[in-house]
Structures are given as C-alpha cells and as structure tokens.
C-alpha cells in the first residue's frame, strides 16, 4: 500500500509512504485516486469512470481533471506515462 488515507471532512489526509509527506487534499483528488486503482488511465478515461458515480459540471471537466492530475504528478502521487 502506497498511501494511507484518512477522510476528515470535505478534506482528506493522505500519507504517502515513500516520501513520508502528508498531503491534505480536497475533492476530487481522493475520488481520482480511488477510481484509478492501480491502473494507468488517460484523463478521458478517468472522467468516464467518475461520471459513473458522480454528477459534475461537464464544462471544463477534462481540463480540470487534467490540472488536478498534473498537480498530483508534481508531488509524486501519480506517475506520468509518456506514450
């Protein structure tokens, strides 16, 4: 297990084992992590998976999700695969 996750309220605390860093995150970060499981997905695929469980504004959804994923990648929570 790479992450320890503790929901607090609207925010969630995530402990990242490898770095030893705790991140306090808001939606949709925990939801993205959960929907990804251990798989490699494109941001389109993640939007699709989120759509199954959640309602959200479709405008900008893909770019917003991509921005969140960039942020997670910058912190080493996700790894960007080059294709």
């Amino acid at each position, binding site marked *: 297990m790479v992450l320890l996750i503790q929901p*607090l*309220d609207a925010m969630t605390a995530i402990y990242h084992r490898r770095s030893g860093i705790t991140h306090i995150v808001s939606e949709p970060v925990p939801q993205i992590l959960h929907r990804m499981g251990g798989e490699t997905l494109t941001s389109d695929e993640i939007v699709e998976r989120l759509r199954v469980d959640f309602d959200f504004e479709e405008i900008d959804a893909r770019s917003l999700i991509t921005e969140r994923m960039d942020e997670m990648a910058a912190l080493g929570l996700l790894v960007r695969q080059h294709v």
Partner: protein
Amino acid sequence: MYEFRVQVGPAAFRIGSAWKRPVNELAELYREYPTPDIADYSVRLEATSLIRRFIRPSVAINGDYILPDAAPLPLAQALLAAEMGMNLQMALGWRRHLLLHASAVEKDGKALIMTGASGSGKSTLSAMLGCKGWRFMGDEFVLLDLLTGAVVPFPRLISLKNTSIGAMQATALDGRFGPLLRDTPKGEIRHLVPARDAIRAMTQPAQPALLLFPSFGFESAVREIAPSEIFIRLTQASTNYVALGEAGFKTLTRFINTVPARAIDYRKGEEAEALVNQLWDDLS
C-alpha cells in the same frame, strides 16, 4: 563546568553551566524531581565570550541540539536560558512520542489537552486547573504514546508570564515560586513548581478525552472546529510529526478520530474554568 541533572517525565537532562548560580537555582526549584544517571540530552549555558563570563555576563544556550538564531540572555535570566535549552532539546530531538506544543491536565484517569498560539493562555489554564483538583501533566509539551495514544506527562516547571504571575500567586502555595525574572524577551517570567502529586505521578499516562483550543481576550464562547482544521493545526503544533513518518500519521489520525475538540473563548480565568468543567461534564 558546573553540572545539574534532572528527570522530567520520560526525559533526562544534564545541564552544564559556566557559572555556579544557575545550577543552584535549578537544584532548588527541581528539588522534588528524580536525578537520572544517564542523560538523554545535554544543555550547556556558556559565556558568549571570555569577557562576558565576568563582565555583564551573557549566557549562550548550547547543547546537543541548537538553533542558529538563538539570542543570548543576561546571567540574571539563566534559569530561563536553562528552560529554553531543555525545551529546545525536546522540540528538536524527541522521537519517542508524537510531541505536541500543548498543555495537559488529568482527572479520573482521562486527560484534557489545550493547545494554541502563545498568549492563548494554555499554560496558565493548566497551572490553574492543577490547583483545582486536576493533576497537572505539562504546560509546554504533550507527548502522545505511539502505540497506545495515551498522554505521557512532561511536568516541567510552569513558566508564568506577566499578568498570570499575579493570578497564580493568589492561587498556588507559597514556597513553590522561583525568582521573578524581569525584562526577559517575553516580559516578566516567574517559574512555579508543579504540585508535589503531579511530580510524583509523572510516569503515569492518561488517555486523552478532550482537546481544547483556548483563545484569551474574547467574550465567553464555545465553537466547533472542522476535523481538517484540527489536523492541520496539530501538525503545526508538533515539532516531530513529519520526522515520525507513518507512526506520526497514525497517532495523529487516531487522536482526531477519538478525541472530541472545541475552541473556547474567554476573558477571565473563572470563565475558562466554567467552560472547561461544563464541557468535561458533557463528556460522560
């Protein structure tokens, strides 16, 4: 180097001083505390220069762990320098518990923890409650056991500042106060020896039951706080949360999941006491 050793809760200190007087003052105030043989940390009160050992003596705080920006203190405040040195060793070195910058008192085997910025009154409140039927557990650091989550006492001398000195002189027993230190960087300071029972029970932990964030100077009130705010404030109140890694995360999340928390505002000690008692009674 003159030497003095003291055991406070789980931590043993060795204090070395270039002057005799600070060692005598420490021995007097810590007379009821045990003397350890092996010290966890060494603190050194040294002259800032050879001249400053004799003329307008100036005390540099050194030790196993030091901070680069530390300012020296005049010899008359050497007691304060020793306390700062010991606190610094804990803040920078301690890794055996999750260390929170907070005060704590105990009743019926359960601990009340108070945390907040300096000036919030957490130290004075713990001293006051310690005179009113609670067991004083510490006014500066709260140590959370990494396995059980219990509060481990660290009942060092209580450091009273400015107006709280007068308030406590009216409450606490005579003969338990240190000398009045004037014009320190934090104003007037006077040390108070915790009650004898609190010192005797300094190895007895207690399970945390209530967390308070006191604020002094506002109309009496009780407020809820969001768990995420508690989490962030406690990580910032801890000097070793990050270094403890996973153990720190687990101890902190367990604490937040199990201990109710409130913010309280007060303008007078009696108001705070009433709020504390009311919240404490509501627990059961």
